[in-house]
């Protein structure tokens, strides 16, 4: 009954090598989720419009829903799971926890992955640079203010926030 696709593709994800069976044009997102059980990257639109599926490919943010698995052969893929764990979170993940920067959390994978790429290239971004970098990612719960604060916090910027904790 089960017919496996014939192609075998080697990919490197979160520091480990994997051999996956998939048609070469299969979206990387589906391979990460369904073959490697990495649930961090999320399906949001399948169109490269929302950013929920963002991963790093050789350090750059990529929409895994519109990236063919064959395109990352020989490259280094990092997912949200590759940044840190609840026990040992990445500084940006910790900043999101500290700022309580999530509601439903479905978009947060993309927010953290995009922000991590930003901070890797620009360790102390201005607020405008953060807004500009994050503009490609959508959030429906309206957690934007906290997401910006979390990125500022991770960048070592002021934790004092315009929305305020007082009152």
């Amino acid at each position: 009954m089960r017919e496996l696709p014939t192609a075998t593709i080697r990919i490197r994800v979160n520091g480990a090598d994997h051999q996956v069976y998939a048609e070469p044009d299969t979206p990387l997102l589906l391979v990460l989720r369904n073959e490697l059980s990495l649930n961090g990257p999320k399906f949001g639109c399948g169109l490269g419009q929302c950013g929920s599926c963002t991963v790093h490919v050789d350090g750059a943010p990529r929409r895994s829903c519109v990236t063919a698995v064959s395109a990352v052969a020989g490259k280094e893929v990092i997912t949200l799971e590759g940044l840190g764990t609840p026990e040992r979170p990445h500084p940006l993940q910790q900043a999101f926890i500290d700022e309580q920067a999530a509601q439903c959390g479905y978009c947060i994978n993309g927010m953290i992955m995009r922000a991590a790429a930003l901070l890797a290239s620009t360790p102390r971004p201005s607020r405008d640079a953060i807004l500009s970098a994050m503009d490609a990612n959508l959030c429906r719960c309206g957690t934007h203010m906290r997401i910006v604060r979390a990125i500022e916090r991770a960048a070592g910027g002021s934790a004092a926030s315009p929305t305020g904790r007082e009152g």
Partner: protein
Amino acid sequence: MSTSPASPRSRREFLADAGVLIVGFSLFPRASHASSLGRPPRVATAPSADALDSWVVIGRDERVTVYAGKVELGTGVSTALRQIVAEELDVPLERITWVQGDSRLTVDQGRTVGSGSVKRGGAQLRRAAAEARQALLELAAKQLNAPVSQLEIADGVVSVARDASRRLTFGALIGGGRFERTISGRASVKAPAAYKVVGRPIPRVDIPGKVTGKHVYVHDLRLPGMVHGRVVRPPRIGATIESLDERSAAKLPGVIRVVRKGTFVGVVAEREEQAVRAAKTVNAKWEATPVLPDAADLYTSFKSLATTERVVGETGDAAAALRSASRPVRATYRWPFQLHASMGPSCSVADVRADSATVYSATQGAHQLVAPIAALLGVPSDQVRVVFTEGSGCYGHNGADDVAADAALLSQAVGRPVRVQWSREDENAWEPEGPAMLFEMAGAVGADGKIAAWTYDAWTPTHGARPTRDPATLVAGALAAGNAAAGEFFSGGGERNARTTYALPNERVTSHPVPAFPIRTSSLRGLGSPQNSFANESFMDELAAAAGIDPIELRRRHLSDPRALAVIDAVAKRAGWTSGASAPARSGVAGEARKGRGFAYVQYDRTEAYVAAVVDVDVRPDTGSVRVRRVCVAHDCGLVVNPDGLRNQIEGNVIQAISRTLKEAVRFDATRVTGVDWNGYPILRFSEIPDAIDIELIDRPDQPSVGAGEAATSPIPAAIANAIFDATGARVRQVPFTADRVRAALRA
């Protein structure tokens, strides 16, 4: 005392089998799945709201398992509800295990809707926890040989006052046993002044998992043997199939079956990408009868479709007062169809077998979904179990119930667990939309500077069409039957905040329900409240401007509730409101933004949270672009359970409301919804957020908590409209406030 992490396996032995706690593939090895999911749960009795054992189970390992009917929709309510239980039971919050929304395991607390989880659901949980605490004290009194009055209780331990050696943990007192006790309602609850956990900004329990990819959404479930389904959609319910290439699709690698039932067409394949390909290959052609009005005629079509009216509220004689008014003001406002637009398109996993059906769903009503799923499958209701599993934020009735029906039908057809993931197009075109509304307002301010007349007429399709026992209330059932059934009507949905809370001597508020409209609609966050408040609070501003009165002052003249006045005063002070009527200049320097500031006030649903808002905007008269720069909110929802969780909700409401007001409208042509991606249905982006959202919480420990999931949305649209007027003198009366509309208003 044991602190072993092992599951309690006494009364609720089936817990490990329940699915809720063990479905996370990434959290648990494959083996535990296979071994636990095969067996049906052993359930002695259905949960009952009166029985303490239905709510709270304490294990020998000191874990407290709470069974809640209300569910986490991304608002943080499962943290707030844990706080309430931890507080009343005197147990550390981290020792609580939470089971939510399982039609077989949890009490039916009603759907998780209408900002009712803390208010109503929390009150039930508080009573249950207080009863459990009382029961534990009584047990300890016997075992420690001391009267209850001499006992102290803290951190899950009961001890004798001033004799620390005489102590028993909750686990030692009842671990693994049953309370066998009815919730009397007489167990005393704590005074708010004694609260240690409620009222504190406890970090949300779900966020560490959500920021590391470990949180298990319904999208992330993988059952053994699970395969993937997709549904092939017609332009609308009732459209007939003209052609279908089942054969080509069936021959594709991995395809298990092309399923057809009436006009319901689905595919099931071994792998997700194979299901996607098969759904395309089916290449269905449908009859495309034009059924939708031209977008330009939408609102007039409402008026011709509505044949009844309902007077929502009336005082004095508004018609006569209007006739005798020297300067009546009239205005028409319009609000479009809008989407919930969840970031994650709806998803469900169903496992339908010969004698049982388990459906994992992000539904707002697990218990309510059982009957229509059973009817759809043609099996008795007692064979169907719906297990809530968190999804993407829903903000109301989105596609969660419908996708569950898709998965159930496809699983039944192939006899294996099936996961159905809607596409973005499925979600945008098939979720029940938030209804469009048309408003006609008239009113006048008298010589005494008070409102002498006020009339409101509104036309809208239903704001409530939840699944009933009829499976044709779900899309899959409607497609199978060839037509839709009317969903559960929630009376008052479109009328929420139709009537203001202002004391008006001559007022007539009339609603005109649009009984049937070709676009399927149901509850979107706030139901009619944001739209009604847009019309009412814009019109209030128009009356103030016409009479030359400060807009806050005019409102104050018609309010006496001290809590209403308190939020208004608080936000005015916080925003630095300067009294005076809006006196905008229409001229300006080309290329420069004009600044304006608007106010609005709403008491949500007339009896719930009080919210006042001041919004600052920049308007570019040359381009028509509007940017919200700052939002001040004062918010009173009674006793605050978790101030940071509440702020998070308020910020989310504000941002989403700005998005709905400035950007959002469902696009459609004569046959179908056309705005089926994020370009066709744009929402607010980071570059468009305000510089600041400044929130003042007015905590009222002496007042019961009311909901906060929706309230802060309601004043925002009018506050933005009023700010645009303040900046430019142009009154924008149709949402969304696109650049074209703003420029047109400037020319008007």
